[in-house]
């Protein structure tokens, strides 16, 4: 028992996580590519035309995955930041730092594809509605986290300040998620919900889930790539880093 716990903690050191991340990246890229190709095929060639929105609804296949990932990455980022704050593990803080730009990208894509969907369907690129505004706040939270970390010279202090910001910001996630229930909004209700059967055609649902899987695998792959760079940048004074690059 004790031995196995120690085994897990071994990967909490940058020195052993750096090569491990390197070995995992190609697998996540492969998973992203396979699910992405399958998801795009369904999105454009299998899923039928929507009765109300015609072909315009196909934006859902990128809008929903990007929005889900923007919220999910925030939770994962806050989790690692919190672990880093509580246990003082360096890799967790680096992981949080690495996830922020990917989360910001997903939030930006969610807002952008949402605007491109809103214009033809609602007649407006943007409305100050609860769902849209809370997602915009999420985007700003990511930017604030990155800016705060970049503004503090001592990386360990930057980790601590960033972690507190990330943890406080978690309050925004349920607000985004439940905004369509709590307030009257222009945004449609959730397409998928844990208690009810999904309110969409089976093929549309599969397309959306495969695209979400692709976005998920993409996010893991790209944040592992970035965390490797962060590990080398922050551990450059150590002996192992000098031998890690040949």
């Amino acid at each position, binding site marked *: 028992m004790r031995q196995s716990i120690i085994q897990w903690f071994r990967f909490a050191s940058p020195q052993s996580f750096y090569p491990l991340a390197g070995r995992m990246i190609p697998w996540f890229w492969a998973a992203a590519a396979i699910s992405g190709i399958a998801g795009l095929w369904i999105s*454009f*060639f*299998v899923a*039928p*035309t929507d009765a109300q929105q*015609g*072909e*315009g609804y*196909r*934006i859902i296949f*990128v*809008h929903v995955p*990007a929005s889900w990932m923007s919220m999910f990455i925030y939770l994962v980022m806050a989790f690692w930041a919190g672990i880093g704050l509580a246990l003082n593990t360096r890799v967790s803080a680096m992981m949080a730092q690495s996830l922020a*730009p*990917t989360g910001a*990208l997903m939030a*930006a*894509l969610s807002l*952008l*594809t949402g605007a*491109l*969907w809103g*214009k*033809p369907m609602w007649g407006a690129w943007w409305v100050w509605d609860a769902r849209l505004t809370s997602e915009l706040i999420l985007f700003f939270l990511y930017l604030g986290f990155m800016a705060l970390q970049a503004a503090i010279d001592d990386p360990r202090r930057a980790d601590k300040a960033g972690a507190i910001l990330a943890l406080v910001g978690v309050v925004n996630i349920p607000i985004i998620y439940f905004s369509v229930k709590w307030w009257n909004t222009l945004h449609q209700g959730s397409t998928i919900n844990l208690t009810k059967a999904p309110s969409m055609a089976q093929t549309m649902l599969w397309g959306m889930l495969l695209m979400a899987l692709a976005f998920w695998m*993409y996010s893991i*792959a*790209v944040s592992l*790539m*970035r965390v*490797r*760079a962060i590990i*080398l*940048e922050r551990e*450059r004074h150590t002996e192992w*880093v*000098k031998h890690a*690059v040949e």
Partner: protein
Amino acid sequence: MQWNSVGEFFAMGGYALYVWGSFGACALLMIAEPFLASRRLSEVRRSLIRERIADELESQQRSQ
């Protein structure tokens, strides 16, 4: 499949700007991000290699 021609596929039932704009924006950003991440990694690796070469040169000079 609901498309009768390639033109019809690209027209997206009149929603071409919005549908292709959305997928295009995703493709663009999701190609740019891994490119930037891998450039960041290779930059830090290059600077570490330069640093090591400088260290080696310095120790050689000292031993001479």
